[in-house]
């Protein structure tokens, strides 16, 4: 490991953080600040979904429902019951998690495919609930006048200020996820994705840990929903249509299933890219779809795989041009 590798290794996090902190100063106008803020929210969502799919291999096709539940939960508690905003955010997460138990407990034992279909139906049911349960959700006119946080005398109505709330939330979610993955319960979840038979043989209660992954991921999705509600100050069902679930799924897959940095960056890139291509008109959606397909085919590990590779090279743990040891060993076995 050279000196450069060492400097890189110890400074990378801090450089990234400083760039993230200074970012609003370089953003030309409010429109782009809005794009970046939304991208951060979706990055958190993509990362949350990755806790379920990346760890246990289960796919949730109606994930936006949990984001919506968090958003409505937090908005209702703040507007009708005047709860403090921080508490509303956490409560949004908890309510969303409660719904995951409701959906998960009967479906966790099903095979992956059936679980996916159940979540799809759940997404649609929740959407209908947002639209039709007018007395609680306000129906299609939504919930208005959601308060904005006013912490430490800062006016978070300004998108460039709200950005910092989102940034702190994102950093917290990343740290919590990372800690979880490198722990006993996190490894139990990963082992299910890798080989559920062996996981069971090692004493892992498979349905329980699948449920745990689902609960954690929907908790974060619910918090992200609350973050959206206090940012937008107005929510209605159009933000929670099932098509958004596919968008989140695409972000996670393009980012790299099972990679924290990847799924997060996948969320950022796929939120920002379509906005950058707006000048192309409607063809951008076709290009977007094409880009997703190309990445899935040519880089099955997604952006995360590429990032981890570059990171490995810069850290000095991977040498460029070196054949993977896996390939060497495989050859050895064949001999």
């Amino acid at each position, binding site marked *: 490991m050279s000196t450069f590798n060492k400097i890189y290794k110890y400074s990378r996090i801090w450089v990234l953080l400083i760039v993230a902190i200074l970012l609003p100063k370089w953003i030309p106008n409010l429109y782009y600040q809005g794009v970046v803020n939304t991208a951060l929210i979706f990055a958190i969502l993509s990362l949350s979904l990755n806790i379920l799919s990346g760890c246990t291999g289960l796919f949730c096709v109606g994930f936006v429902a949990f984001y919506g539940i968090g958003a409505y939960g937090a908005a209702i508690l703040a507007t009708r019951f005047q709860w403090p905003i921080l508490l509303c955010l956490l409560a949004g997460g908890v309510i969303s998690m409660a719904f995951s138990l409701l959906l998960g407990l009967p479906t966790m034992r099903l095979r992956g495919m059936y679980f996916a279909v159940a979540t799809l139906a759940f997404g649609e049911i929740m959407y209908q609930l947002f639209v039709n349960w007018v007395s609680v959700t306000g129906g299609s006119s939504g919930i208005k006048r959601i308060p904005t946080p006013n912490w430490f005398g800062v006016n978070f109505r300004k998108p460039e200020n709200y950005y910092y709330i989102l940034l702190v939330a994102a950093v917290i979610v990343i740290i919590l996820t990372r800690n979880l993955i*490198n722990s006993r319960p996190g490894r139990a979840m990963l082992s299910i994705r890798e080989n559920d038979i062996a996981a069971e043989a090692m004493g892992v209660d498979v349905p329980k840990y699948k449920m745990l992954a689902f609960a954690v991921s929907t908790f974060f999705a619910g918090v992200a929903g609350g973050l959206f509600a206090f940012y937008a100050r107005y929510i209605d069902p159009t933000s929670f249509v099932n098509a958004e679930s596919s968008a989140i799924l695409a972000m996670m897959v393009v980012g790299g299933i099972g990679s924290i940095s990847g799924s997060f960056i996948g969320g950022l890139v796929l939120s920002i890219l379509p906005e950058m291509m707006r000048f192309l008109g409607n063809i951008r959606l076709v290009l977007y779809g094409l880009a997703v397909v190309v990445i899935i085919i040519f880089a099955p590990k997604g952006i995360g795989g590429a990032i981890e590779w570059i990171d490995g090279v810069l850290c000095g743990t991977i040498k460029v041009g070196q054949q993977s040891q896996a390939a060497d060993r*495989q050859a050895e076995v064949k001999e």
Partner: protein
Amino acid sequence: MTAILETKGIGIHFGGLRAVDNVSFTAEEGSITAIIGPNGAGKTTLFNLIAGFYTPTEGSVYFEGKDITKVKTFRRTDMGLTRTFQNINLFRDLSVMDNVLVGLHCKTKCDPISAMLSLPNKRKEEKKSREQVMETLAFLGLDHVAEEKAGSLSYGMQKNLEIARAMVSHPKVILLDEPASGLNTSDLDSLSKRVVAIRDSGITVVLIEHKMDVVMTISDKIIVLNFGKKIADGTPDEVSQDEGVIEAYLGKDDD
């Protein structure tokens, strides 16, 4: 010696096939019991019944005197009954270290909240677990590949990793399904030594093996299966002189 593991008239059939048929045997605490028999005799199926992967159509399994026939697989592991797989079931994309750490799942306690917040109890337990894993890896000659992905290891190393993962929790009984298959002669010798060392550390070993020289030298007792039925049961000397066994197995098939 007391029987720590026992099956009573256990059997399972798949459609018309009686894969395991009315098999009763005991494994004495602190001993090595070998299960031998021709291909397709039902040895792996018997392990699947003992470990809880299959539900028997008849008979029962006793562990430390308790009937565990209806106990779920993961709970049997929790009770101290672990296994390896003949057809290697590793967590291929996880590191060797992480594979064996999962083997400690039952012996550790860290909950999701302490894990996410990285509380001191988690960090302490994690450190202790890693030390324990390194000891086990060293025992199996895998300490130098601790950070590599399990799927990138050679076949022989993967076989050893299976053993490491099953023994790291220091179970009461370990079921080893053909640990010697695919090993070369020098590795065979160290495998035999390791199995004996595992027994000497207080873990009862039940072993399926085709390599007769290994079985004959290390086993305290041998069970012979043929077409799902137990045809012999005794010390290596007794079994190797048994007429039925010679006819069914030793005489015509010795790989």
